[in-house]
């Protein structure tokens, strides 16, 4: 699905005049139409790497703020050129810092916030507000406004259903302009903040935008693992509705594993697990920890205060409800062409031992479509019942994942994530305390 443009060219209007303009837009031009009764989406969209690559002339403008293939391909080239580890995801912070600033930057249009992906426009947002920080120091605040209507085939009709507001400028001017944002958010509709950037950056701004009543979308694969899990934990504890794209990307792993144990005759094996191995791409361990934590929570395992590191393998233990030990190995594997999302899972193995010596155990191996699980297949499971499943890759554009959250969120954090996040944080503490 290709992104859609607003139907009218966005008008540049001084910030203080926006509320008045919107009022007149809806009351005069579009009489008897108050817009869609849906939600307001506020997006933090820095697109730092894209800005740098466009101003350097390494990719063509305009700046769009999405993950287009040209951007990803060029970023991968930079990983190789700058001798970064091959496992470095193309949109990682290291890639950004290794791109030199341009001495004579290309002037290209910046259309962030004006391209609305059809996955989102189908949901007919009432208002989309995009904060588009610029790399250009000293850039003054610029505000753009347009009425917006999804195309009929995307569920829209002839009448306008929402509007688009874009705030552009350097960080300082954006921060100064923030005072108008809260006034622009309709009080009677659910509002969302999509933090489409690294969680390490601008923590104060994140706090300012993610007010407690607002539903938040973050990506716990972007940022230092401890910061990512801190943000998740704090927000969940405060009762805020948190939606994590990294957790969402785990859904095929959770679904496939659950599917393996759907037949009632396999369920008893769940209480006999002795080993859990998870392989991830690179060294961003949050997704691996979240998957292990979800399993631990569902099966009533408690974390044992033991940790060891063996090469790429991070080893800890859980205790089952019957006090037997489950060994958990999280393997951080270097890969040649990593996903754009750091730390994606590429394989997992569960070993269930039968209590009776005479009976075979069960070994469940799930492998990502993109990888192979020869490593997990090794290790003397020949005598066991072997169940292997392929987990479909989720190559959704991030906007599709966000749309999925927007249409399926219940206004509270998923209980599965609420329960898994604290266990993941404990695991990370254990790993980091031993690593220090």
């Amino acid at each position, binding site marked *: 699905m290709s992104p859609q443009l607003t139907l009218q060219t966005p008008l540049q209007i001084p910030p203080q005049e926006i509320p008045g303009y919107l009022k007149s837009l809806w009351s005069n031009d579009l009489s008897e139409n108050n817009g869609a*009764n*849906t939600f307001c989406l506020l997006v933090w969209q820095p697109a730092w790497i894209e800005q740098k690559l466009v101003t350097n002339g390494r990719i063509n403008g305009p700046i769009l703020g999405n993950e287009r293939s040209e951007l990803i391909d060029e970023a991968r080239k930079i990983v190789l050129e700058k001798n970064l580890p091959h496992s470095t995801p193309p949109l990682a912070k290291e890639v950004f810092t290794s791109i030199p600033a341009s001495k004579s930057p290309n002037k290209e249009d910046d259309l962030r916030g004006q391209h609305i992906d059809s996955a989102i426009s189908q949901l007919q947002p009432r208002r989309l507000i995009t904060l588009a920080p610029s790399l250009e120091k000293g850039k003054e605040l610029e505000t753009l406004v347009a009425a917006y209507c999804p195309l009929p085939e995307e569920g829209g009709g002839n009448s306008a259903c929402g509007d688009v507001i874009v705030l552009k400028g350097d960080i300082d001017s954006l921060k100064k302009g923030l005072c108008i944002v809260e006034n622009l958010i309709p009080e*009677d509709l659910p509002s969302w903040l999509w933090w489409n950037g690294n969680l390490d950056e601008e923590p104060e701004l994140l706090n300012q935008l993610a007010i407690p009543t607002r539903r938040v979308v973050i990506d716990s694969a972007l940022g230092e693992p401890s910061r990512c899990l801190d943000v998740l934990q704090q927000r969940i504890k405060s009762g805020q509705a948190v939606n994590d794209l990294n957790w969402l990307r785990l*859904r095929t792993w*959770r*679904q496939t*594993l*659950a599917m393996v*144990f*759907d*037949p*009632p*005759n396999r*369920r*008893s094996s*769940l*209480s006999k697990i002795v080993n859990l191995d998870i392989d991830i791409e690179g060294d961003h361990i949050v997704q691996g920890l979240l998957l292990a934590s979800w*399993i631990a929570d*569902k*099966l009533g395992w408690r974390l044992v205060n033991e940790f060891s590191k063996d090469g790429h393998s991070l080893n800890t233990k859980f205790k089952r409800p019957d006090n037997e030990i489950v060994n958990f190995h999280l393997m951080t594997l270097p890969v040649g062409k990593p996903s754009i999302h750091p730390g994606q899972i590429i394989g997992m193995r569960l070993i269930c031992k039968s209590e009776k010596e005479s009976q075979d155990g069960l070994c469940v191996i799930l492998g990502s479509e993109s990888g192979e699980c020869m490593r997990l297949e090794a290790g003397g499971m020949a005598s066991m019942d072997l169940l292997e499943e392929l987990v479909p890759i989720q190559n959704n554009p991030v906007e599709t994942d966000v749309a*999925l959250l927007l*249409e*399926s*969120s*219940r*206004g509270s954090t*998923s*209980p*599965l994530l609420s329960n898994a996040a604290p266990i993941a944080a404990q695991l990370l503490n254990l790993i980091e305390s031993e690593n220090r």
Partner: protein
Amino acid sequence: MIMTTNPLRIGLRQERVISPQCLVIFGASGDLTHRKLIPALFELFKQRRLPSEFAILGCARRPWTDKEFREKMSKSLTEEIRINPNDWKEFTTRLFYEPINLDHPEDTFKLKTRLEEIDKLKATHANRTFYLSVSPKFYASGCKALSEAGLLKDPKRSRIVIEKPFGRDYRSAQKLNRIVQNCALESQVYRIDHYLGKETVQNILVLRFANTIFEPIWNRNYISNVQITSAETVGVEDRAGYYESSGALRDMVQNHLTQMLAITTMEPPGHFDPEAIRNEKSKVLQAAHLANELEPWKCCVRGQYSQGGTKSNPLKGYREEVGVNPNSTTETYVAMKLFINNWRWQGVPFYIRTGKRLAKRTSEVVLTFREAPVHLFDAAGGTPTSNQLILRIQPDEGAEFKFEVKSPGSGMRSRPVEMEFSYDESFGEPSDEGYVRLLADAMLGDPTLFTRSDEVEAAWRLYTPLLEMIEDSPWQLPTYQYESRTWGPSEADQLLAKDQLLWRRP
């Protein structure tokens, strides 16, 4: 240790969330509300599929208060409430009641005021789904009353759900459609058929269109005949009043069985879109006709259950049931033969049967494939058994494929075996009641599993020759008596015997 549920499955569903709204149930004092609708809504609540800004407003003529309504609604949910007392407590804060008589225009304005109050209280944003769980004679007046009160004005915020039966015949359905469409847009109207809410009926679509192996052989070149059965073991129970005027043809065939027929025979839609699917269903129903429209008695058999059972457990005949006319000719069983005049199905007979007090409770679609052109091997049963694909709708939901294999031993004799898929064995957990799915879909504004006006009319048109004959010259389509807990009258067996076929004994 045997786990009754799969712990990894709990909470995994990621489904669209219903937008803030108020569901208004007319006929809230009736059986359907406390037996089906409220349990289904409570299930949605437990599954966290209802938004926090949600309310249910029960409306009926009885002068109940909110409190009384909440108490009455708990009566079909005693066990559920015992297990989930806090959920029920929370759920009941969303239950309201307003005494309403749809015949009194002033009551609909009273309703409007109450809805505005609920909007403020529960932030339901004037999004409303009106559910007509009332006697069919009130469908037209109910729609008119809602329309006149301006409650259906906004097509994006209001929709109306109408229970079956939608009309009594083609003309009355057409008339009702006109009235309803004068009150609301077709996109606002959700005609419910709870069979379409069944997981296994929906699975027919997935089985056909998500696999490549079935569709190439799903046609007249490979399929010799199709049988669709919906058999009940129960009698008329406490529905005699309704059943006397409807009979099996109106109660089961025109809606549930015809929907199963449409889903089994429709062409693949271009995409999974409500209108694309309903277009295909409507097209195939328009191509369907009775095997002999001029002499319907040659392709249709009606029956009525008589006494039966055992000495210790005798069963009454239909005419002895409370509320039934002792000389009633209402059919409790009907079997018929249809054809579909299109490229895919030309010449393939479809045999449909339904009945009460039959030998076994079952609903299934059986596709029998053509015989192998040459019989190379001796068959254990004399001739090789034709391949059969059996789609079990209920109970023991699943599918079964029958085919021939070599019988062990010397020689090359073949015998039939079965390959089976069972929902229970594969998923181990019961699927949601049809109403759970359909209520959620209606509130989400997804009409895929609801019947469109042209589908309803096409379904009635299909049976018009029969309905007219039953009305005008019922002696030509007599109701043959059959003993309770048997497979219907022997005349129904003869219907197939003429084609050298037998009904499948499930």
